[in-house]
């Protein structure tokens, strides 16, 4: 072997998990992945085929030893905290609610204003959910290839698109609310104000989450909340107006932080932004966009159904159901605790996948698949255990308080605890499927889940009572979990292929 060894068969300084090829098949795959075709092998290495080149290189490559330096891994606790860091803002809101009886949004307001805030909040999540997911997908990819300049440009472009979508959907919301008298004027305007301001905040916090700077989201929330307190207490400004101003200020703080962090990335990576094509971005990110939108539809459909149950004696067509909302918020708290596991479990799963792949050759493929199935089963069982513990703990804690005052709320809480537990499992599966580049599996599970949620929830709320919307949500979440579990198990049969395909 007179020619130098191809780079892909030598250890890399930036890859602590590098290991020599297990066999000639492994060597061929590495060469072909690095673009060494038969023609290249003949032209540059004097071998007739890639296969011959691999056979020639294998003994030399095996002379390198496996990296002894262990891969830097964060502890499971840190991964878990990182997983739930997105909820720090929510915790601050809860704290503000306990201290001041109001927070960045929500508080002791009239029934119509509560409905307006609720409607604005839900619509802002649904509108920006897809944009944030698509932006994160493109941003994370561009940052991972050290193209901070293009990542920055792409993020701001998605933000502009998000603002346009917010404005368009806000106008549609106002038109529909006026035409169908969902809310009496001027509460429909209040709904649109919350929709726009909260939407801007979600866009900004979405970038911060992508950059793993969730603490800054909490800072922005804290600044906004303090502003609401100041405006409402010191200047006697009406709570809703103060909240809209506070949210806008929080969004401005968050966007400023985004600006500095993205600029830092650009300067660190250097270079200029590459020209972007919106069509290309859409082509790459459309499953993520749909996932973001559909996910929030699944999460919020039950609330929309509960709020719109006809009541001939109500002040407006859309009514905020405080008791139902409290039950769901408690279950949501449990969901946040469970969802923290998604990140740590996904990281652990793929770490195990990468290391097992380097130890087990093609001849031991079945062992490799069995090992990965075991990891998946263990992690899933962990989810169920945490879900059971969280749900029982929360229910017991709530039973000793006066947070829920009637039997129907407890019924809604029980269903919602089941539903959010299923949703956590579904998210764990979703995370795996996205990492394996199988977004169509996720969408194929989400769409029937939303349909079941809406159809069952609608029938039960219209024929029974609004609390039964939680049954629809739970059924939808269970279906989502079941379908994604089935997809993961199916992909698990050829996990080596899907992992390789997703990486290439």
């Amino acid at each position, binding site marked *: 072997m007179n020619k130098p060894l191809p780079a892909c068969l030598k250890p890399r300084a930036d890859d602590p998990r590098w290991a020599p090829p297990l066999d000639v098949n492994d060597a061929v795959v590495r060469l072909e992945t690095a673009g060494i075709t038969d023609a290249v092998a003949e032209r540059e290495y004097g071998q007739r085929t890639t296969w011959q080149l691999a056979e020639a290189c294998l003994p030399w490559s095996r002379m390198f030893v496996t990296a002894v330096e262990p891969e830097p891994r964060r502890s499971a606790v840190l991964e878990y905290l990182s997983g739930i860091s997105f909820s720090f803002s929510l915790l601050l809101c809860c704290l503000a609610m306990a201290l001041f009886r109001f927070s960045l949004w929500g508080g002791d307001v009239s029934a119509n204003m509560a409905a307006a805030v609720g409607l604005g909040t839900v619509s802002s999540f649904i509108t920006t959910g897809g944009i944030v997911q698509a932006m994160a997908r493109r941003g994370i990819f561009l940052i991972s290839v050290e193209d901070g300049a293009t990542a920055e440009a792409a993020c701001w472009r998605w933000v502009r698109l998000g603002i346009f979508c917010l404005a368009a959907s806000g106008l549609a919301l106002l038109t529909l609310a006026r035409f169908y*008298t969902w809310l009496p004027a001027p509460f429909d305007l209040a709904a649109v104000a919350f929709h726009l301001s909260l939407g801007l905040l979600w866009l900004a916090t979405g970038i911060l989450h992508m950059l793993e700077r969730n603490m800054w989201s909490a800072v922005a929330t804290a600044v906004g909340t303090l502003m609401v307190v100041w405006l409402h207490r010191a200047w006697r400004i009406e709570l809703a107006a103060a909240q809209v101003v506070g949210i806008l200020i929080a969004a401005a703080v968050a966007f400023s932080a985004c600006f500095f962090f993205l600029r830092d990335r650009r300067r660190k990576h250097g270079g200029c932004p590459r020209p972007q*094509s919106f*069509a290309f971005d*859409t082509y790459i990110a*459309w499953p993520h966009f749909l996932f973001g939108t559909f996910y929030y539809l699944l999460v919020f459909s039950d609330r929309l159904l509960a709020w719109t149950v*006809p009541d001939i004696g*109500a*002040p407006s067509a859309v009514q905020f159901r405080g008791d139902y909302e409290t039950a769901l918020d408690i279950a949501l708290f449990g969901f946040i605790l469970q969802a923290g596991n998604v990140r740590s479990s996904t990281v652990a799963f793929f770490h195990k996948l990468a290391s097992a792949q380097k130890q087990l050759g093609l001849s031991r493929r079945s062992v490799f698949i069995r090992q990965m199935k075991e990891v998946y089963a263990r992690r899933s069982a962990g989810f169920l255990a945490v879900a059971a513990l969280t749900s029982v703990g929360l229910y017991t804690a709530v039973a000793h308080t006066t947070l829920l005052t009637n039997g129907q709320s407890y019924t809604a809480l029980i269903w919602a605890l089941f539903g959010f537990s299923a949703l956590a499992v579904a998210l764990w599966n979703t995370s795996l499927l996205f990492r394996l580049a199988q977004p169509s599996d996720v969408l194929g599970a989400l769409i029937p889940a939303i349909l079941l949620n809406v159809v069952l929830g609608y029938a039960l709320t*219209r024929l029974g009572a609004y609390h039964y919307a939680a049954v629809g949500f739970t059924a939808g979440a269970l279906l989502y979990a079941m379908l994604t579990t089935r997809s993961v198990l199916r992909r698990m049969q050829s996990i080596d292929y899907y992992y390789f395909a997703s990486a290439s």
Partner: protein
Amino acid sequence: MTITDLIDCVRVTFAFLVVFGAVPCLVARISPGDRNLMSFCALAVRTSLFAAIAALGLGSMRICLPGSMLAGYLFLFLMLLWMAGSLEPLWQPQWRAALLHKILVFNENGHGTPRRLSAASGDRLRHWRIVREPAFLLSMFIAVAALSHSLQYVRFLNDQSYSRALSLQKLALGQPWTPDGSVAFLAPVVFLSSLDGATVVRFSGPLFMAVLALAGFAAVRGATGSSPVGLAAAAGLIILTAFSHSAELQAGGIALIFWLTGFSLWARYRWDALWSVALAMLIEPIPELNTVLCVSVILVIVFLARFGEATRRLLQASGTPLATAAIVCLILIPLHRGKTHGSQYNITARTVARITREFPRNTWLVVSPVQEVALTYGHGWHMELSEFVETYTVDEVRRPDFSFKFPVGDTFVFVEKEPLTSRSMASGLSELGPRFDPPMAPYLLRLNRASMQFQAARLLAAYRATHRGTEVFLEDQQLIVYRIRG
């Protein structure tokens, strides 16, 4: 007439055209088959029957709500698409990829390929010759003439209209409902226009009147092959309806549309003709005298035109004069009967409409005769005048510490300064005959009504003398409305 009336009229017309025009057109695009006027009529019958059956079924379960109706229509379209095989490509990833590619190309280019009117489209339009027929012009005039009356008057001239309005409102709000085929198929119009049952009944009547003229024309023209005879028959129908129901189309008139459509469809579309008859019977299970009379008149006209040359010529010659007479009748009869008939002053209905528009939902109470229930239902609360005068006494309300204690912000008490008298009222219960309806009866007896109004006026005068928060909300020659702030 106010701007609000005009906007309401546009909303109902738009919803009406969507439900009875655009939906059949969409079904026609999906389903393979003929593309002519009669096939469109057949599809309109099918979609109307679907709406009626869906609303009746859902209404009996108290879930005839916008979401249910939308789900019903979605189900219908998905079924049709599935039957036409249009859903199959959705399961093919290549088709989805091609669709995405199309969207991306459109997105990149920023424009689509301009569509041209193809020869096939032009050919399709040729089938719609009816737009060039004088009967089409007549139906347009009829719609305008009848709508102008509806724009001017909020109150109805027939008691049946109040019942239908209330029934439609109950159906659309998911309340306990007695099945009524004459309003069931109007539920989609209520949802799409987002107006109450009373407004939909008020403005859909004139539109149905125009459709009735077209149905009459199509039936007779199809049977005789003569457009002028068809025009004469259509005009004759309108004149009869104008006299019998003061130009306010009732269940019988709407059923008549489907009887006549069934007659027209019988030659080519037997099943659809049967569906049409079924729908007519859903709307009016036992045909009234007027329906039988109108059908008989049409049959006689067809018979005379087919078998008597002289009468055929006479009918052909009388088309235009009869059409003119029909329009004159539509304008003059309601004007004349408005003075002598009716169970409600127009100012009363207009004031209630104003209250429902200007005051927040369910924060007010109207105290008035039973006719106003149809206008207030679903917007606010209503208390019958008879109950009001029976519950309170003058001595009681005069006390300064007295309060009505209604759990609302504002109470509006309607008192007729000049108690309503009309030909629809009677001096004794026996005079009411088949019109006897327990809730309506106290207000249809002249003396009883006058007595209640007098007592209400005394109560309010006594209350106002000792209570500050009472003001006159509206006053004219016939009516005074007191507003009591809660």
